[in-house]
Structure formats: structure tokens, C-alpha cells
């Protein structure tokens, strides 16, 4: 599976500092079409920063990020247009509390992609069906459980038919019994061929869905490879230490 499609996302020597803290010190990463890349690493190892850089929510200090071959870190590029090609799901859902579930999902199709309101509603309903929440269309986000909110957030990202999905700790804020419904959904997306980059603390899930697991340490990709190898038989001492702490 790995390396089967064209590269969708390529990171070359990406650097990012916050003040004196160097979070990313030259990250190289390639994500192919249909591939699921899972980032693991200790808190503060830069997993979220990496995703934020890819979504252009942070300006990189150096290095290059290519989306379908186009250098999106070039300041001449329209960042909004680039973001419109990616779907992002956040740890805290970040649904808009003043909009109904349906309006959350139709906002970007109508306002960004110029889809007619009727079509957008149809597509949004199909997407809510897809995540199993059609009956919640008129509800407010605050009336949903965490797992339901996260599924709406996934629907909101998916409705724009993104080239790439970025998922930042999407199950970390959920109760354990609600984690399953979100992970099942992501597993189905993978089977449908969606390209995804995600970071997670769920090593079991990483093992199941990942084509490639990347261990971030010291601001670089310290080790990467198929999940069986990185999680089961890591070559690097640091990776082994990290995994033993996670599993303990």
C-alpha cells in the first residue's frame, strides 16, 4: 500500500520555532495518495505543530511543503485556497455553537466553494447520513455528545471533498466509550481511499489504520515505517523508550 499512489503531501526540511523553542528542526515526510500516516511522539514533540504548518495555520520558518506538487509555503500562494483543499478535524471539535449541525456542514460549501444552498444541503445531509447523524441535522452542537460532535466535525471537513484530511488528536477529548464510534468512522474513510495524516495516542488504532507510523522526536522524524515494525519492533532506542512508557 505504502508508496502506491502519487505523493499528495511532501514536507522538505520543515522548521518551526516559537520564540526560543525549536519545535520542528527539519522534518521530511512524504504522504502518498490513499495513504494513512500516523504521527506519534511525546507531548510537545511537534505533532500538532506539524499539522498546523501543513494547514498553513502556522508560517514555517524554513523548508517547503508541497501539496500535489505545488509549493504551498510560497508567500505568493493564496493560503485560503490551499486550506479549502484540505480538511481539518480538531481535538476540541471546534464546531460553531451558534449554527445548527446542518449549517455547520453547509457553511464552507456555500460560502467558500460556491455550491447552491439546495445542493449544499443535500450534500450535507448525505454526509450526516454517512457519519450516522442525519436525525441531528437541526440540533445545536451543544446538544450533542462529544463523539457526535466529533462526527459532525468530520462531516464538516469531508463535505468539501478534501484532497487530504488532517486529524489532530481527534479522540483525545472523548470518553472511552465514545472513542470507538469516531475510530470506526476513520477506518471506513481509509477503506474508501481517503488520504489522511493524523496524530493520536491510541497505539492500537495506529496499528490498525496506519500505512506508515512516524515517531517524532527532537523536532525530526526519528523513525518511520510500517506500523508492525515501528510499533512492534522499533529500531531506535528512543522509539522503544517512548512506546514502553505509553504501553506501561
Amino acid at each position, binding site marked *: 500500500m505504502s508508496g502506491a499512489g502519487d505523493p499528495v503531501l511532501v514536507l522538505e*526540511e520543515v*522548521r518551526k*520555532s*516559537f*520564540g*526560543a523553542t*525549536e519545535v520542528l*528542526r*527539519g522534518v521530511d515526510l512524504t504522504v502518498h495518495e490513499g495513504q494513512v500516516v500516523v504521527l506519534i511522539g511525546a507531548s510537545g514533540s511537534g505533532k500538532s505543530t506539524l499539522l498546523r504548518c501543513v494547514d498553513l495555520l502556522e508560517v514555517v*520558518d*524554513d*523548508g*517547503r511543503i508541497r501539496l500535489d506538487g505545488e509549493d504551498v*509555503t*510560497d*508567500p*505568493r500562494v493564496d493560503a485560503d485556497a490551499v486550506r479549502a483543499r484540505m480538511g481539518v478535524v480538531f481535538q476540541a471539535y471546534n464546531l460553531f455553537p451558534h449554527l445548527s449541525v446542518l449549517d455547520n456542514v453547509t457553511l464552507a460549501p456555500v460560502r467558500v466553494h460556491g455550491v447552491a444552498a439546495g445542493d449544499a444541503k443535500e450534500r450535507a445531509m448525505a454526509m450526516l447520513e454517512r457519519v450516522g447523524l442525519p436525525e441531528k441535522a437541526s440540533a445545536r452542537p451543544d446538544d450533542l455528545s462529544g463523539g457526535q460532535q466529533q462526527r459532525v466535525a468530520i462531516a464538516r471537513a469531508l463535505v468539501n471533498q478534501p484532497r487530504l484530511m488532517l486529524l489532530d488528536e481527534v479522540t483525545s477529548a472523548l470518553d472511552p466509550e465514545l472513542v470507538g464510534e469516531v475510530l470506526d468512522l476513520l477506518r471506513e474513510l481509509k477503506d474508501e481511499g481517503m488520504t489522511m495524516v493524523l496524530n493520536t495516542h491510541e497505539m492500537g488504532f495506529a496499528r490498525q489504520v496506519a500505512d506508515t507510523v512516524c515517531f517524532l522526536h527532537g523536532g525530526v522524524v526519528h523513525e518511520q515505517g510500517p506500523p508492525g515494525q515501528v510499533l512492534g519492533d522499533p529500531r531506535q532506542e528512543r522509539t522503544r523508550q517512548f512506546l514502553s512508557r505509553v504501553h506501561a
Partner: protein
Amino acid sequence: MTAAPSWQPSALEVERRRYRRSRAVRSAAVSGASTVLVVGVVLTLLVTSPGWPRVRETFLSWDKAVAAFPAVVEGLWLNIRVMLVCGVLIALLGLTLAVMRTVRGPVAFPLRLFATVYVDLFRGLPLLLVIFVLGFGAPALRLSGLPSSALFWGACALVLSYSAYVAEVFRAGIESVHPSQRAAARSLGLSYGQTMRHVVLPQAVRRVVPPLMNDLVSLQKDSGLIAVLGVIDAIRAAQIETATDFNFTPYVVAGALFVCLTIPMARLTDHVARKQGFHGAGGVL
């Protein structure tokens, strides 16, 4: 940009920075040029209008401005004193009303009722009317022990009226603090009052500083309304100066002084708000 000493930016990054810098310079140049252009056009239109010499003489006479300045400044000093004293009283009364309106439970019903009726009444009544009623009515009662000065009763009217507005600003702030904050405070064993005092109000007040500042600036100007009771504030002083020769320059002087008072106050609030970690609309996203 933070170029850490541990690495040298690549040629790519250097080029990107150069491009960003050139864009920034261009943006600054465009905005600067357009500002100069607009201001220039407006000034030209003004100065070339047929009635300009007459208007300049009537509103912008330097000699008249110098002559009127001392009287207007003396009036302004009254505005400032009224604003400062009333500002403090309004903040206290407004906060008290807001807390009364947000107290829960059936026991506190009379408090809530009082605060609600008060706010409804004094927000509805025109300020000028309150000033007239208190300024002319209260002294007429001839109650012993109460001052009969117009300044005192005018200031009372300002406090009563503005407290109603300010109470609603505070209430909005109090209600904007998430219920989980109260829950966390109560869970630590803090009483209702302690929760208000140490957890809710500090957050609420911080959030409503910008609208409160709005009310303070508004008060600074409305403090002049007590001139109807015969007190001489900046505008009244300007009016008296104007009455001698129908030259309106003193009004312009008073207006300029009011603006000069407001601007440092606004910058001060911005500064305080930033120091407290509130970014507001102008902050970085």
C-alpha cells in the same frame, strides 16, 4: 521572524523573507499614498469652496480661540471632576445592580425585582429629564441636611441614569463567564459570594472593559448636560464666549479639548487590556 542561532536559513527561506518584506513595503506605500490622496482631496474641496473664507473666520479664528481658551478650560475642569467622581459612583452602583440582578434563588426575588425595575426605569428616562426633575425638584423639597447645589443634584442624575446602562454591561459580562467556572469554584468550597468576588467578577469585568470605556467617554461629554441647571461646563463656557460676537470658534476649541481627553483614555484602556492578556478584535488571530 525568529532566526534561531543553531541554523542558517536556506536560500528558499531567504527568498521568501525578501518577498514578504517587499510585499510589506508595498502595502505600506499603497496605504500611505491613498491616505495622503484622500486627505488632500477633502482638504482641497474644503478650502476651495466658495464660503470657505467666511467659515474659517467664524469657526477657526485663532485670536478668538486664544481669547476663549481660559474660560473653556475652566469649564472643562468641571467636566473632568464630574466625570471622575460620577465615574467611580456609577461603577459601584452599576456593579451592585448587576450582581443583584444575577443572584439566583427565590429568596433574592425582591433584589432581582428592584434591580430590574430600576434598570428599566432609568434606561427609559431621558437623561435631561432626570437632570431637570432632580435639579429643580429635589432642592424644592427643602429637606434639611441635603445640599441644594445644582452641581450636586446634576451629578446625582448622571449617576442614577448611567448606572442603569453600566449595570447591563456588567450583567452581560457576568453572564458571559461559562457556568463551568462557577461549578469549579463551588466545588472548591467557595461560597456564592466568594465565587462572584474571586472567580466570576474578575473575568466578567475584564471582558467588559472596552464597552465600559465607551460609557466613560460618553459620560465625559454628557457631564456637560448639567449646564442646564446653571453650572458652567466647557460647552456652556464656549456658548457664553460665542454670545458676545457670534464667532463659533470657542465651540471648536471645546470640541478639540474633549477629543484630546478621550484619545489618551482610549490608548490607556487598550494598554491595560493587552497587559491582562485580552486581545480583542485588533489582536493577532
